[in-house]
Protein backbone atom coordinates (compact mmCIF):
# COMPACT_ATOMS: atom_id res chain seq x y z
CA UNK A 1 0.00 0.00 0.00
CA UNK A 2 1.36 3.43 -0.93
CA UNK A 3 1.89 6.25 1.56
CA UNK A 4 -0.78 8.18 -0.30
CA UNK A 5 -3.25 5.40 0.28
CA UNK A 6 -2.16 5.08 3.93
CA UNK A 7 -3.01 8.74 4.43
CA UNK A 8 -6.31 8.68 2.55
CA UNK A 9 -9.39 9.53 4.62
CA UNK A 10 -11.78 11.13 2.14
CA UNK A 11 -12.94 10.40 -1.39
CA UNK A 12 -14.82 13.22 -3.14
CA UNK A 13 -16.54 12.77 -6.52
CA UNK A 14 -17.85 15.68 -8.59
CA UNK A 15 -19.97 14.57 -11.52
CA UNK A 16 -20.65 17.10 -14.25
CA UNK A 17 -23.00 16.80 -17.23
CA UNK A 18 -22.93 15.88 -20.89
CA UNK A 19 -19.57 16.65 -22.49
CA UNK A 20 -17.28 14.24 -24.31
CA UNK A 21 -13.56 13.79 -23.70
CA UNK A 22 -12.49 15.10 -27.09
CA UNK A 23 -14.81 18.11 -26.84
CA UNK A 24 -13.28 19.23 -23.54
CA UNK A 25 -9.73 17.83 -23.45
CA UNK A 26 -9.02 16.61 -27.00
CA UNK A 27 -6.83 19.62 -27.87
CA UNK A 28 -4.36 18.74 -25.10
CA UNK A 29 -2.88 16.06 -27.36
CA UNK A 30 -1.08 18.76 -29.30
CA UNK A 31 1.09 19.63 -26.28
CA UNK A 32 0.80 16.35 -24.35
CA UNK A 33 1.06 13.51 -26.89
CA UNK A 34 0.22 10.81 -24.33
CA UNK A 35 -3.25 12.25 -23.91
CA UNK A 36 -5.50 10.42 -26.34
CA UNK A 37 -7.12 13.48 -27.84
CA UNK A 38 -7.50 14.81 -31.35
CA UNK A 39 -5.03 15.04 -34.21
CA UNK A 40 -7.34 17.40 -36.09
CA UNK A 41 -7.97 14.90 -38.85
CA UNK A 42 -10.87 13.05 -37.22
CA UNK A 43 -14.08 13.41 -39.17
CA UNK A 44 -17.69 12.41 -39.73
CA UNK A 45 -19.78 12.52 -42.89
CA UNK A 46 -22.71 14.92 -42.95
CA UNK A 47 -26.08 14.14 -44.51
CA UNK A 48 -24.87 15.46 -47.88
CA UNK A 49 -21.89 13.10 -47.83
CA UNK A 50 -19.37 15.85 -47.17
CA UNK A 51 -16.50 15.09 -44.79
CA UNK A 52 -16.67 17.21 -41.64
CA UNK A 53 -13.44 17.42 -39.69
CA UNK A 54 -13.22 18.24 -36.02
CA UNK A 55 -12.65 21.96 -35.49
CA UNK A 56 -11.37 23.96 -32.52
CA UNK A 57 -14.39 26.26 -32.54
CA UNK A 58 -16.39 25.25 -29.46
CA UNK A 59 -18.11 28.11 -27.64
CA UNK A 60 -19.23 28.38 -24.04
CA UNK A 61 -22.92 28.60 -24.94
CA UNK A 62 -25.48 28.84 -27.77
CA UNK A 63 -23.70 26.41 -30.09
CA UNK A 64 -25.42 23.19 -28.99
CA UNK A 65 -29.04 24.26 -29.05
CA UNK A 66 -31.07 22.11 -29.56
CA UNK A 67 -29.58 19.79 -26.99
CA UNK A 68 -27.78 17.02 -28.91
CA UNK A 69 -29.46 13.62 -28.80
CA UNK A 70 -27.97 11.26 -26.24
CA UNK A 71 -30.74 8.73 -25.79
CA UNK A 72 -30.03 5.10 -26.62
CA UNK A 73 -31.06 5.03 -30.32
CA UNK A 74 -29.24 8.30 -31.02
CA UNK A 75 -26.03 7.13 -29.36
CA UNK A 76 -26.31 3.85 -31.28
CA UNK A 77 -26.34 5.88 -34.49
CA UNK A 78 -23.40 7.98 -33.31
CA UNK A 79 -21.31 4.89 -32.52
CA UNK A 80 -22.23 2.68 -35.49
CA UNK A 81 -22.74 5.36 -38.12
CA UNK A 82 -26.24 4.21 -38.97
CA UNK A 83 -25.56 0.52 -39.57
CA UNK A 84 -28.59 -1.53 -38.59
CA UNK A 85 -28.30 -3.42 -35.30
CA UNK A 86 -27.25 -7.00 -35.69
CA UNK A 87 -24.24 -9.29 -35.76
CA UNK A 88 -21.14 -8.12 -37.58
CA UNK A 89 -21.66 -4.38 -37.60
CA UNK A 90 -18.59 -2.36 -36.65
CA UNK A 91 -18.42 0.63 -34.32
CA UNK A 92 -16.83 3.53 -36.23
CA UNK A 93 -17.95 6.72 -34.41
CA UNK A 94 -19.22 8.08 -37.73
CA UNK A 95 -22.80 9.00 -36.91
CA UNK A 96 -22.55 12.14 -34.76
CA UNK A 97 -23.18 14.70 -37.49
CA UNK A 98 -25.96 12.66 -39.03
CA UNK A 99 -27.65 12.31 -35.67
CA UNK A 100 -27.37 16.01 -34.87
CA UNK A 101 -28.86 16.87 -38.24
CA UNK A 102 -31.96 14.94 -37.24
CA UNK A 103 -32.46 17.63 -34.60
CA UNK A 104 -31.11 20.78 -36.22
CA UNK A 105 -32.53 20.11 -39.72
CA UNK A 106 -29.65 22.34 -40.80
CA UNK A 107 -26.58 20.77 -42.41
CA UNK A 108 -24.21 23.55 -41.41
CA UNK A 109 -25.42 23.62 -37.83
CA UNK A 110 -25.11 19.83 -37.59
CA UNK A 111 -21.35 20.31 -37.95
CA UNK A 112 -21.25 21.97 -34.50
CA UNK A 113 -21.24 18.53 -32.93
CA UNK A 114 -17.62 18.14 -34.12
CA UNK A 115 -16.38 21.32 -32.40
CA UNK A 116 -13.93 21.16 -29.52
CA UNK A 117 -12.39 23.62 -27.10
CA UNK A 118 -8.90 25.07 -27.01
CA UNK A 119 -8.63 23.45 -23.60
CA UNK A 120 -5.77 25.42 -22.08
CA UNK A 121 -7.17 28.75 -23.23
CA UNK A 122 -10.90 28.16 -22.78
CA UNK A 123 -10.96 25.67 -19.89
CA UNK A 124 -8.18 26.74 -17.50
CA UNK A 125 -9.61 24.78 -14.60
CA UNK A 126 -10.30 21.37 -16.15
CA UNK A 127 -7.20 21.45 -18.35
CA UNK A 128 -5.00 22.48 -15.41
CA UNK A 129 -6.30 19.66 -13.24
CA UNK A 130 -5.84 17.23 -16.14
CA UNK A 131 -2.23 18.19 -16.69
CA UNK A 132 -1.23 18.92 -13.09
CA UNK A 133 -2.59 15.65 -11.70
CA UNK A 134 -4.01 12.56 -13.50
CA UNK A 135 -6.16 12.34 -16.60
CA UNK A 136 -7.85 9.14 -17.74
CA UNK A 137 -7.60 8.27 -21.43
CA UNK A 138 -10.13 5.51 -20.92
CA UNK A 139 -12.97 6.59 -18.63
CA UNK A 140 -16.27 5.79 -20.36
CA UNK A 141 -19.87 6.42 -19.49
CA UNK A 142 -21.45 3.20 -18.27
CA UNK A 143 -24.23 3.03 -20.87
CA UNK A 144 -24.54 4.40 -24.42
CA UNK A 145 -27.48 6.43 -23.24
CA UNK A 146 -28.66 9.43 -21.20
CA UNK A 147 -28.06 10.88 -17.76
CA UNK A 148 -30.28 9.01 -15.33
CA UNK A 149 -29.12 5.48 -16.12
CA UNK A 150 -25.50 6.59 -16.26
CA UNK A 151 -25.59 8.39 -12.94
CA UNK A 152 -27.23 5.32 -11.45
CA UNK A 153 -23.99 3.43 -12.04
CA UNK A 154 -22.15 6.00 -9.92
CA UNK A 155 -24.58 5.48 -7.05
CA UNK A 156 -25.46 1.79 -7.29
CA UNK A 157 -22.99 0.17 -9.71
CA UNK A 158 -25.95 -0.71 -11.92
CA UNK A 159 -28.94 0.93 -13.56
CA UNK A 160 -31.14 -2.08 -12.72
CA UNK A 161 -31.63 -2.83 -16.41
CA UNK A 162 -32.67 0.69 -17.43
CA UNK A 163 -31.21 2.49 -20.46
CA UNK A 164 -33.33 5.62 -20.28
CA UNK A 165 -34.70 8.24 -17.98
CA UNK A 166 -37.27 6.04 -16.25
CA UNK A 167 -37.75 5.92 -12.52
CA UNK A 168 -36.09 2.65 -11.69
CA UNK A 169 -34.90 2.97 -8.17
CA UNK A 170 -38.01 2.64 -6.12
CA UNK A 171 -38.99 -0.73 -7.56
CA UNK A 172 -35.70 -2.52 -7.03
CA UNK A 173 -33.95 -2.55 -3.67
CA UNK A 174 -31.72 -5.54 -4.32
CA UNK A 175 -28.59 -3.39 -4.50
CA UNK A 176 -28.06 -0.64 -1.93
CA UNK A 177 -26.65 2.73 -2.91
CA UNK A 178 -23.04 3.39 -1.96
CA UNK A 179 -24.27 5.90 0.65
CA UNK A 180 -26.52 3.35 2.35
CA UNK A 181 -23.74 0.76 2.27
CA UNK A 182 -21.38 3.17 3.98
CA UNK A 183 -23.80 4.29 6.66
CA UNK A 184 -25.01 0.77 7.43
CA UNK A 185 -21.39 -0.21 8.02
CA UNK A 186 -20.80 2.67 10.42
CA UNK A 187 -19.03 4.92 7.92
CA UNK A 188 -19.97 8.39 6.71
CA UNK A 189 -21.19 9.47 3.28
CA UNK A 190 -23.08 12.42 1.88
CA UNK A 191 -24.51 13.78 -1.37
CA UNK A 192 -24.07 17.53 -1.61
CA UNK A 193 -26.55 19.09 -4.04
CA UNK A 194 -26.18 22.73 -4.99
CA UNK A 195 -29.33 24.16 -3.39
CA UNK A 196 -32.99 23.32 -3.06
CA UNK A 197 -34.11 24.80 -6.42
CA UNK A 198 -31.50 22.63 -8.12
CA UNK A 199 -31.63 19.67 -5.72
CA UNK A 200 -30.46 16.14 -6.38
CA UNK A 201 -30.97 14.47 -9.71
CA UNK A 202 -31.68 10.76 -9.82
CA UNK A 203 -32.00 9.46 -6.30
CA UNK A 204 -34.75 11.66 -4.98
CA UNK A 205 -36.28 8.60 -3.32
CA UNK A 206 -33.53 8.83 -0.72
CA UNK A 207 -34.44 12.40 0.23
CA UNK A 208 -37.27 11.23 2.44
CA UNK A 209 -35.92 7.89 3.55
CA UNK A 210 -32.32 8.87 4.14
CA UNK A 211 -32.32 12.65 4.71
CA UNK A 212 -29.08 12.53 6.64
CA UNK A 213 -27.31 11.54 3.43
CA UNK A 214 -27.89 14.95 1.87
CA UNK A 215 -26.36 18.37 2.23
CA UNK A 216 -25.95 21.50 0.16
CA UNK A 217 -22.86 22.90 -1.49
CA UNK A 218 -22.59 25.55 1.21
CA UNK A 219 -22.45 22.73 3.73
CA UNK A 220 -19.73 21.03 1.70
CA UNK A 221 -17.61 24.16 1.84
CA UNK A 222 -18.30 24.46 5.57
CA UNK A 223 -17.48 20.79 6.14
CA UNK A 224 -14.20 21.19 4.26
CA UNK A 225 -13.21 24.20 6.34
CA UNK A 226 -14.29 22.60 9.61
CA UNK A 227 -12.69 19.20 9.05
CA UNK A 228 -16.10 17.52 9.18
CA UNK A 229 -16.16 16.13 5.66
CA UNK A 230 -17.60 12.59 5.45
CA UNK A 231 -15.41 9.75 4.28
CA UNK A 232 -17.26 9.71 0.95
CA UNK A 233 -18.83 12.75 -0.71
CA UNK A 234 -20.66 13.06 -4.02
CA UNK A 235 -21.20 16.58 -5.32
CA UNK A 236 -23.87 17.69 -7.76
CA UNK A 237 -23.61 20.94 -9.74
CA UNK A 238 -26.44 23.39 -10.21
CA UNK A 239 -28.77 22.01 -12.87
CA UNK A 240 -30.79 25.10 -13.79
CA UNK A 241 -30.75 28.89 -13.92
CA UNK A 242 -32.85 30.28 -11.08
CA UNK A 243 -33.14 33.26 -8.76
CA UNK A 244 -31.00 33.16 -5.64
CA UNK A 245 -32.36 33.55 -2.14
CA UNK A 246 -31.03 37.12 -2.07
CA UNK A 247 -32.62 37.98 -5.38
CA UNK A 248 -29.44 37.40 -7.33
CA UNK A 249 -28.95 35.15 -10.31
CA UNK A 250 -27.84 31.54 -9.88
CA UNK A 251 -26.42 30.08 -13.07
CA UNK A 252 -26.50 26.41 -13.95
CA UNK A 253 -22.99 25.04 -13.43
CA UNK A 254 -23.49 21.50 -14.74
CA UNK A 255 -22.20 22.32 -18.28
CA UNK A 256 -25.17 20.47 -19.79
CA UNK A 257 -25.84 22.04 -23.21
CA UNK A 258 -26.91 24.82 -23.48
CA UNK A 259 -25.71 25.92 -20.04
CA UNK A 260 -22.59 28.04 -19.94
CA UNK A 261 -19.41 25.97 -19.79
CA UNK A 262 -17.46 28.73 -18.08
CA UNK A 263 -19.80 28.66 -15.06
CA UNK A 264 -19.00 24.97 -14.71
CA UNK A 265 -15.31 25.82 -14.74
CA UNK A 266 -15.87 28.18 -11.85
CA UNK A 267 -17.83 25.50 -9.99
CA UNK A 268 -15.05 22.94 -10.38
CA UNK A 269 -12.56 25.54 -9.15
CA UNK A 270 -14.70 26.23 -6.07
CA UNK A 271 -14.87 22.54 -5.16
CA UNK A 272 -11.13 22.12 -5.68
CA UNK A 273 -10.29 25.23 -3.65
CA UNK A 274 -12.50 24.10 -0.77
CA UNK A 275 -10.30 21.03 -0.41
CA UNK A 276 -7.02 22.58 -1.48
CA UNK A 277 -7.09 25.47 1.00
CA UNK A 278 -7.38 23.21 4.07
CA UNK A 279 -3.85 21.80 4.48
CA UNK A 280 -5.01 18.83 6.55
CA UNK A 281 -7.84 17.91 4.21
CA UNK A 282 -5.67 18.40 1.14
CA UNK A 283 -3.22 15.75 2.30
CA UNK A 284 -5.81 13.07 2.98
CA UNK A 285 -8.39 13.61 0.25
CA UNK A 286 -8.70 12.51 -3.35
CA UNK A 287 -11.01 14.38 -5.75
CA UNK A 288 -12.43 12.81 -8.90
CA UNK A 289 -13.97 15.15 -11.47
CA UNK A 290 -15.93 13.18 -14.06
CA UNK A 291 -18.80 13.68 -16.53
CA UNK A 292 -21.88 11.48 -16.56
CA UNK A 293 -22.06 11.00 -20.33
CA UNK A 294 -20.96 12.61 -23.57
CA UNK A 295 -24.19 14.49 -24.28
CA UNK A 296 -24.23 13.51 -27.95
CA UNK A 297 -20.96 15.35 -28.66
CA UNK A 298 -18.24 13.77 -30.80
CA UNK A 299 -15.50 11.54 -29.39
CA UNK A 300 -13.21 9.45 -31.56
CA UNK A 301 -12.63 6.45 -29.27
CA UNK A 302 -14.77 3.35 -29.80
CA UNK A 303 -16.32 2.24 -26.48
CA UNK A 304 -15.00 -1.16 -25.38
CA UNK A 305 -16.83 -4.24 -24.14
CA UNK A 306 -17.47 -4.68 -20.42
CA UNK A 307 -18.70 -7.21 -17.89
CA UNK A 308 -22.50 -7.52 -18.15
CA UNK A 309 -24.42 -6.82 -14.98
CA UNK A 310 -26.92 -9.63 -15.43
CA UNK A 311 -29.66 -7.39 -16.80
CA UNK A 312 -31.11 -7.03 -20.28
CA UNK A 313 -32.96 -4.04 -21.67
CA UNK A 314 -35.68 -5.08 -24.10
CA UNK A 315 -35.80 -4.07 -27.75
CA UNK A 316 -38.69 -1.78 -26.91
CA UNK A 317 -36.69 -0.13 -24.15
CA UNK A 318 -33.61 0.48 -26.30
CA UNK A 319 -35.61 1.75 -29.26
CA UNK A 320 -33.18 0.16 -31.71
CA UNK A 321 -35.09 -3.04 -32.38
CA UNK A 322 -32.44 -5.01 -30.50
CA UNK A 323 -32.13 -5.80 -26.79
CA UNK A 324 -29.07 -4.59 -24.89
CA UNK A 325 -27.18 -6.86 -22.48
CA UNK A 326 -25.10 -4.13 -20.81
CA UNK A 327 -22.02 -5.72 -22.32
CA UNK A 328 -20.37 -2.61 -23.77
CA UNK A 329 -19.73 0.84 -22.40
CA UNK A 330 -20.98 4.24 -23.46
CA UNK A 331 -18.96 7.02 -25.01
CA UNK A 332 -15.79 8.37 -23.39
CA UNK A 333 -16.00 11.28 -20.96
CA UNK A 334 -13.49 13.59 -19.28
CA UNK A 335 -12.19 12.32 -15.95
CA UNK A 336 -9.38 13.68 -13.79
CA UNK A 337 -8.11 12.54 -10.41
CA UNK A 338 -6.64 15.12 -8.04
CA UNK A 339 -4.39 14.59 -5.02
CA UNK A 340 -0.98 15.84 -3.88
CA UNK A 341 0.04 12.19 -3.95
CA UNK A 342 -0.34 12.04 -7.75
CA UNK A 343 2.65 13.05 -9.88
CA UNK A 344 2.17 15.96 -12.27
CA UNK A 345 1.31 14.91 -15.79
CA UNK A 346 -0.01 11.44 -15.00
CA UNK A 347 -1.83 10.02 -18.01
CA UNK A 348 -3.72 6.78 -17.40
CA UNK A 349 -3.64 4.78 -20.64
CA UNK A 350 -6.83 3.64 -22.30
CA UNK A 351 -7.73 1.67 -25.39
CA UNK A 352 -4.99 3.38 -27.45
CA UNK A 353 -2.48 1.27 -25.50
CA UNK A 354 -3.99 -2.23 -25.34
CA UNK A 355 -1.08 -3.73 -23.45
CA UNK A 356 -1.40 -1.25 -20.59
CA UNK A 357 -5.00 -0.11 -20.92
CA UNK A 358 -6.91 0.68 -17.74
CA UNK A 359 -10.60 1.03 -18.53
CA UNK A 360 -12.83 2.86 -16.09
CA UNK A 361 -16.55 3.60 -16.00
CA UNK A 362 -18.96 4.93 -13.42
CA UNK A 363 -19.26 1.57 -11.63
CA UNK A 364 -15.61 2.23 -10.78
CA UNK A 365 -16.84 4.84 -8.28
CA UNK A 366 -18.86 2.63 -5.90
CA UNK A 367 -16.33 -0.14 -6.53
CA UNK A 368 -13.48 2.07 -5.34
CA UNK A 369 -15.36 3.40 -2.32
CA UNK A 370 -16.61 -0.06 -1.33
CA UNK A 371 -13.21 -1.67 -1.73
CA UNK A 372 -11.39 1.02 0.23
CA UNK A 373 -13.76 1.75 3.09
CA UNK A 374 -15.73 -1.49 3.30
CA UNK A 375 -13.05 -3.91 2.11
CA UNK A 376 -15.44 -5.02 -0.60
CA UNK A 377 -18.04 -6.21 1.88
CA UNK A 378 -21.36 -5.40 0.18
CA UNK A 379 -23.82 -7.03 -2.18
CA UNK A 380 -22.80 -5.84 -5.64
CA UNK A 381 -23.41 -6.62 -9.29
CA UNK A 382 -20.84 -8.56 -11.27
CA UNK A 383 -20.33 -5.37 -13.24
CA UNK A 384 -19.26 -3.41 -10.18
CA UNK A 385 -17.15 -6.25 -8.83
CA UNK A 386 -15.18 -6.28 -12.09
CA UNK A 387 -14.92 -2.50 -12.41
CA UNK A 388 -11.43 -1.04 -12.29
CA UNK A 389 -10.68 1.02 -9.17
CA UNK A 390 -8.62 4.20 -9.22
CA UNK A 391 -6.80 4.63 -5.90
CA UNK A 392 -3.74 2.82 -7.26
CA UNK A 393 -2.74 6.15 -8.78
CA UNK A 394 -1.75 7.47 -5.34
CA UNK A 395 2.01 7.16 -4.81
CA UNK A 396 4.48 7.27 -1.91
CA UNK A 397 5.57 10.82 -2.68
CA UNK A 398 3.50 13.82 -1.60
CA UNK A 399 4.07 16.98 -3.60
CA UNK A 400 5.04 20.13 -1.72
CA UNK A 401 2.39 22.76 -1.09
CA UNK A 402 3.95 25.23 -3.52
CA UNK A 403 3.89 22.55 -6.21
CA UNK A 404 0.08 22.34 -6.24
CA UNK A 405 -1.95 25.06 -7.95
CA UNK A 406 -4.78 27.13 -6.51
CA UNK A 407 -7.51 28.90 -8.49
CA UNK A 408 -8.39 32.54 -8.24
CA UNK A 409 -12.12 32.67 -8.91
CA UNK A 410 -12.39 36.43 -8.58
CA UNK A 411 -11.25 37.40 -12.08
Amino acid at each position, binding site marked *: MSAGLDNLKHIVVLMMENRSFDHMLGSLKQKYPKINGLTGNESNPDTNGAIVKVQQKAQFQSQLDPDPDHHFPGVDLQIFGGASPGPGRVANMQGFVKDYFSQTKDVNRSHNIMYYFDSQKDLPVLSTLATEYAVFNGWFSSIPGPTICNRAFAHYGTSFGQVGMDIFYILDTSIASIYERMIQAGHTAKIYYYDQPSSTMEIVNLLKNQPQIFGTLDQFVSDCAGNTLPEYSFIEPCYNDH*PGADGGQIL*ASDQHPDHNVREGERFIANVYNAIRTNPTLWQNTVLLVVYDEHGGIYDHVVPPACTPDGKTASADATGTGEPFAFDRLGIRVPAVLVSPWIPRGTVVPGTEDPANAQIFEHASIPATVTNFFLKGDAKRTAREQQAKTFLGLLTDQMRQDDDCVVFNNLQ
Partner: protein
Amino acid sequence: MPPKVIAVPKTDPAAYNPNRPAGTLLQAQALHMREALIRHLHEMTTLLNIDMKSLKSEADVSAYVHKATALLHTHAGKPAKK
Protein backbone atom coordinates in the same frame (compact mmCIF):
# COMPACT_ATOMS: atom_id res chain seq x y z
CA MET B 1 7.40 30.07 -2.56
CA PRO B 2 3.58 30.42 -2.88
CA PRO B 3 1.73 27.99 -5.12
CA LYS B 4 0.96 28.87 -8.69
CA VAL B 5 -2.35 30.75 -8.99
CA ILE B 6 -4.58 30.08 -12.01
CA ALA B 7 -7.06 32.84 -12.86
CA VAL B 8 -10.59 31.68 -13.61
CA PRO B 9 -12.55 34.07 -15.86
CA LYS B 10 -16.01 35.23 -14.88
CA THR B 11 -19.05 33.94 -16.71
CA ASP B 12 -20.81 36.31 -19.05
CA PRO B 13 -23.78 37.71 -17.07
CA ALA B 14 -25.88 37.38 -20.22
CA ALA B 15 -25.64 33.62 -19.77
CA TYR B 16 -28.44 33.76 -17.19
CA ASN B 17 -31.72 32.67 -18.75
CA PRO B 18 -34.26 31.15 -16.37
CA ASN B 19 -36.81 31.25 -19.19
CA ARG B 20 -34.82 28.75 -21.23
CA PRO B 21 -37.09 25.79 -22.06
CA ALA B 22 -36.44 22.95 -19.63
CA GLY B 23 -34.77 19.99 -21.31
CA THR B 24 -35.54 16.31 -20.90
CA LEU B 25 -33.22 15.97 -17.92
CA LEU B 26 -34.92 18.68 -15.91
CA GLN B 27 -38.33 17.40 -16.92
CA ALA B 28 -37.28 13.94 -15.73
CA GLN B 29 -36.02 15.40 -12.46
CA ALA B 30 -39.38 17.02 -11.85
CA LEU B 31 -41.15 13.76 -12.62
CA HIS B 32 -38.87 11.88 -10.22
CA MET B 33 -39.67 14.41 -7.53
CA ARG B 34 -43.33 13.90 -8.16
CA GLU B 35 -42.98 10.12 -7.93
CA ALA B 36 -41.17 10.43 -4.62
CA LEU B 37 -43.90 12.70 -3.32
CA ILE B 38 -46.60 10.26 -4.35
CA ARG B 39 -44.91 7.37 -2.63
CA HIS B 40 -43.82 9.12 0.53
CA LEU B 41 -45.91 12.19 1.04
CA HIS B 42 -49.50 11.47 0.14
CA GLU B 43 -50.61 14.23 2.43
CA MET B 44 -48.88 16.86 0.36
CA THR B 45 -51.78 17.22 -2.04
CA THR B 46 -51.26 20.86 -2.78
CA LEU B 47 -47.90 20.29 -4.37
CA LEU B 48 -49.07 17.19 -6.16
CA ASN B 49 -51.90 19.08 -7.76
CA ILE B 50 -49.55 21.24 -9.76
CA ASP B 51 -50.01 20.50 -13.46
CA MET B 52 -46.73 19.05 -14.72
CA LYS B 53 -47.50 20.27 -18.21
CA SER B 54 -47.26 23.80 -16.89
CA LEU B 55 -43.52 23.33 -16.23
CA LYS B 56 -42.26 24.98 -19.37
CA SER B 57 -39.17 26.86 -18.29
CA GLU B 58 -36.19 26.27 -16.06
CA ALA B 59 -37.65 28.80 -13.68
CA ASP B 60 -40.86 26.74 -13.58
CA VAL B 61 -38.94 23.56 -12.87
CA SER B 62 -36.65 25.14 -10.27
CA ALA B 63 -39.61 26.60 -8.38
CA TYR B 64 -41.27 23.17 -8.31
CA VAL B 65 -38.08 21.38 -7.38
CA HIS B 66 -37.44 23.91 -4.62
CA LYS B 67 -40.80 23.21 -2.97
CA ALA B 68 -40.48 19.46 -3.41
CA THR B 69 -37.01 19.40 -1.92
CA ALA B 70 -38.09 21.45 1.06
CA LEU B 71 -40.84 18.92 1.77
CA LEU B 72 -38.75 15.84 1.14
CA HIS B 73 -35.48 16.88 2.68
CA THR B 74 -36.42 17.74 6.20
CA HIS B 75 -32.78 18.24 7.17
CA ALA B 76 -32.27 21.01 4.64
CA GLY B 77 -31.02 24.21 6.18
CA LYS B 78 -29.85 22.51 9.34
CA PRO B 79 -26.17 22.16 10.16
CA ALA B 80 -24.49 19.37 8.25
CA LYS B 81 -24.05 16.11 10.09
CA LYS B 82 -21.31 13.65 9.37
